Structure formats: structure tokens, C-alpha cells
């Protein structure tokens, strides 16, 4: 297949990345090793190319109403310069995508969406937009092709972000420096004359930032961050480490914990569903699930004996003589931080309490595991 390449493809090659296909993009799996890059992020800093992700601009007097109609979280909570994690659901409550929504200006919002869902999200948003514009104007623009992004994650990155982005602050959160951004805040600042956005979010469970910028300046930003960050032991990090890091903190990955047949309630993301904001697409089904329960629930589990790591699609069984097949693993790996197999999977709610013993079927043998509270790993552990 013809894969797409980000502006950093040449940089990945120069750094010796092992390249793989992800969502139609040719991306770095790792540069040195997944374990090495994972631990670098936990201890110092890692820099990820996330330019394959999508960006959608939603502007106009009807923008807030449109977003509150199509997304589950309450966008009224967003001050200028703030963002929130939220979900895009269809009428039966199933998830079309999970994403971040930032408010850049009074009537100016930016959505950061998954690379593998760009087409699906835009088709859905445009369909909703066609019936929405009757109420108040909303301008919807797909900026994905002209926009790139990098994620700077780790306990040391706040110490050198200002050296790469010295200011001034042109918009967004009311701070004077990028290092003053609090979680979920976003600002706009120039990089070599071009305006870029810096959000204080991440997908790793560590402190960090995501820099969203026009394609042309992504490579200079990447080079500058690596050069300045070198003194703080910043390393380039690939999708392999991105996956192990997010699994350790139990963040969902679309296509694994989330899909169109799974609701935010089943996934344990009810916190991001605002039932009190008025109607939104999927509300009826989600409210019914919240009131009456679901038939499946996302749990976190750890292997309890030395075993091969759990992996997606491995069957989950109960224990005992009459053990039933309970469900399937959706994410799993050997945790580089904890050195044990960890995973996420779906089971019926009656089997979902922490402490419940499970068996994971690995190559036709069953290995013991136990359900634990999320997350597996907490920052600074």
C-alpha cells in the first residue's frame, strides 16, 4: 500500500528508526528500543512525531452549540486557552472517536483527532453540520494536511520548553511563558515567525506538551527540541513506547478500548460524558446505561505468574472448573516500568471488581491474572 509520510520522515530515517505502517502512515516504531524509549520518557523526556493525527477547526457563533451537540463532554466549561478530552458518538452511543477539543478564541475551537479516524470523523461532523447550520453559522475546516504536531513528554521537559519557545504569547491561556501552562491549557506563540499552538496535555501519564504547527515548521521544531533537550537527556520516541506508556496509565486507544460498538460508559469514561448540558448525539443510550448498567465493562488486569505478556484478542476466562469465557483482551504488553504483563479487556460487569481472578489464554494455555484498579502506573512511582 502507499503509505503517507509526515514532515519528519527524513528525520526518522536519519535517526535510524524502525519504520512500520500505522493507520496508513509510515511511522517510527522505535529508534533504539521500545523499552529504552519508554523508560526515557518516565525518567527524563521523549519526543514523539504525532503529525499523522488530524486537526479540525470549528468556528463561528454556532461552534459551541455544535460541539456540545456532537461531543459528549461540556464545551461550555472551556475558557479561551483551555481544552478537554471528549468523545464523538453516534446515535446508539458507540464511539466514533476520542479526541481533544481546545478553545483557541471566543468562537474558535480546534479538535485533535486520531489519525486512523480522520475520514470517519469528518464524514460524521459534516453530516451533523449539514443539519446544524440552520440554527447558527458554523465553519468546519479540515486542517490535517497542512498541520503537523509533536509531543514532548517527561518530567524534565518543562525545564527547557521556554528555551525553544521564548515567546511572546500571542493568545490562549493567560500565561507569560509556555512553562506556566497548566494541564489542559493551550497557548499560541511564534516559532521562527510562524504561529504555533502549545497544549499542556499528553498520552503518556507524564508532564508534557503537544506542539501543533503548520507542516513547514515541524521539522525545525523537532530539531530545535532535540538540540535543546539533549542536555536534559531528551530522546526521540516512537509509537511502540507511546503504546506501552499509555497502556500503563490505562488511556484508551481507538480500535482497542474504543470502537463503534463500544460506548464511553462501557469503557469507563463516564466522567467525560456531561448529562447535564442538554441533549447530544447518543445521550439517550448513554443515560440508560448509566442508570441500568452495561453488559460489558473495561477492566485492567495484571499477570500474576511469570508468563508471556497478554496481547489484543487473547481470550479472557474465569477461574475454576466451570470457568466461562468472559471476553477478550483489547490491549496488552510487558510493562517496561513494572516488569509484569499488563492488559485491558472487556468482561461482564459482575466479573469486573478489582481482585477478581482471571485466566488469559495465551497460545492455548491459560495463565493466571488478577483485575486491578486503574491505573497500573502513577507518575513519579
Amino acid at each position: 500500500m502507499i503509505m503517507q509520510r509526515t514532515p519528519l520522515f527524513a528525520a526518522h530515517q536519519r535517526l535510524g528508526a524502525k519504520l512500520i505502517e500505522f493507520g496508513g502512515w509510515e511511522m517510527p516504531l522505535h529508534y533504539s528500543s521500545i523499552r529504552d524509549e519508554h523508560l526515557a520518557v518516565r525518567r527524563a523526556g521523549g519526543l514523539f512525531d504525532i503529525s499523522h493525527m488530524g486537526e479540525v477547526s470549528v468556528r463561528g457563533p454556532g461552534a459551541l452549540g455544535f460541539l456540545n451537540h456532537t461531543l459528549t463532554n461540556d464545551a461550555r466549561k472551556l475558557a479561551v486557552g483551555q481544552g478537554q478530552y471528549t468523545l464523538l458518538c453516534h446515535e446508539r452511543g458507540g464511539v466514533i472517536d476520542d479526541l481533544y477539543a481546545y478553545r483557541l478564541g471566543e468562537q474558535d475551537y480546534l479538535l485533535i483527532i486520531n489519525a486512523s479516524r480522520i475520514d470517519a470523523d469528518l464524514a460524521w461532523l459534516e453530516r451533523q453540520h449539514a443539519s446544524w447550520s440552520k440554527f447558527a453559522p458554523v465553519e468546519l475546516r479540515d486542517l490535517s494536511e497542512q498541520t503537523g504536531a509533536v509531543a514532548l513528554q517527561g518530567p524534565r521537559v518543562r525545564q527547557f520548553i521556554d528555551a525553544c519557545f521564548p515567546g511572546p504569547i500571542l493568545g490562549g491561556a493567560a500565561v507569560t511563558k509556555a512553562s506556566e501552562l497548566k494541564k489542559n491549557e493551550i497557548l499560541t506563540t511564534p516559532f521562527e515567525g510562524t504561529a504555533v499552538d502549545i497544549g499542556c496535555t499528553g498520552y503518556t501519564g507524564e508532564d508534557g506538551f503537544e506542539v501543533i504547527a503548520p507542516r513547514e515548521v515541524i521539522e525545525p521544531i523537532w530539531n530545535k527540541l532535540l538540540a535543546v533537550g539533549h542536555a536534559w537527556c531528551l530522546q526521540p520516541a516512537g509509537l511502540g513506547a507511546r503504546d506501552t506508556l499509555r497502556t500503563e496509565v490505562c488511556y484508551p486507544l481507538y480500535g482497542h478500548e474504543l470502537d463503534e460498538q463500544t460506548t464511553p460508559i462501557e469503557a469507563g469514561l463516564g466522567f467525560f460524558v456531561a448529562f447535564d448540558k442538554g441533549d447530544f448525539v447518543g445521550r439517550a443510550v448513554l443515560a440508560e446505561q448509566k442508570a441500568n448498567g452495561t453488559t460489558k465493562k473495561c477492566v485492567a488486569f495484571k499477570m500474576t505468574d511469570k508468563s508471556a505478556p497478554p496481547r489484543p484478542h487473547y481470550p479472557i476466562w474465569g477461574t475454576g472448573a466451570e470457568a466461562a469465557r468472559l471476553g477478550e483482551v483489547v490491549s496488552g504488553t510487558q510493562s517496561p516500568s513494572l516488569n509484569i504483563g499488563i492488559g485491558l479487556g472487556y468482561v461482564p460487569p459482575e466479573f469486573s471488581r478489582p481482585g477478581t481472578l482471571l485466566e488469559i489464554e495465551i497460545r492455548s494455555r491459560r495463565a493466571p491474572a488478577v483485575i486491578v484498579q486503574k491505573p497500573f502506573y502513577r507518575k513519579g512511582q
Partner: protein
Amino acid sequence: MAYFPLRLRAFVVKSGTGNRQLMSANIPAELKYAKSHEWVRVSGDTATVGITDHAQHELTDVVFVELPAVGRKLKAGEACAVVESVKTASDIYSPVSGEVLVANQAIVSNPALVNTDPYGAGWFYKIKLSQPAELGNLLSSADYLKQIGG
């Protein structure tokens, strides 16, 4: 389970500055090799089997190894062991036919040995050869080097 496609390429080493240098690959001359990146050390009518330095380099951090049971009879080319890295599980194919005599518990307790000492402490199993003539089908170190693009 799909066999992890170890990318065939010249064995290169990165220097500290990130430049790539082609160096003589670590492929001991006294061993024989399978196309699927296993090595064989012959001693009389028994052989020791492991995976090459190229293979462990492609896998990166090995986190778990599953070995064939002692007494199991293997045919050349048969999937007989599994190596798991953080990201994937890969099948290991027996380069030779015979009966498994010993499985190396050291790499079960410490999978990292496969990365740090693939031709020594990282060996997988010892096998009593049932068809010694099969050794003629294996690659020499020079042929294996060509195979991986050197």
C-alpha cells in the same frame, strides 16, 4: 501466529553521533545458519540452537521465551519455540530434526540473555540430530551475511 518478519538488511551499527557504520556483522564462522535466523552449533550427533545477533537486534528487548519440551521430536522447519519482545511474539523454527535433550532455563528466567549473549548464554535448546545430512542445507556464515544484506 504470524512470523515476525525480521527485516533483511545489512547489519549496521549506529555511532554515538547517529551516523551509521557498516561493520563486520557478528556471525561466528564455526556455526551454521537457517534463513529464518536461527544458528546451530554441532557437537558430534547433538546440536545447540539459538537465534542470531541480527535476529535479537531486530527484536530488541526480549521479555519472554517459550521453549520446546524435553523429549519433543522436531522436524526441520517446524515452529518449536516463541520469543516475545515488548511489541510482538515471534516463532522460532528448528533448523534441524531430532529429539530435544535440554531446554535452556536460563533464558526463561532471564530473557535479556538472548539480547546480550545470543551465541553463548542465550542458547535455546540442545537437540539429538536424527538427520545429520540436513546440516548440508544450512547456510555458512558467509552465506548468512549475504542473506541479511551484508
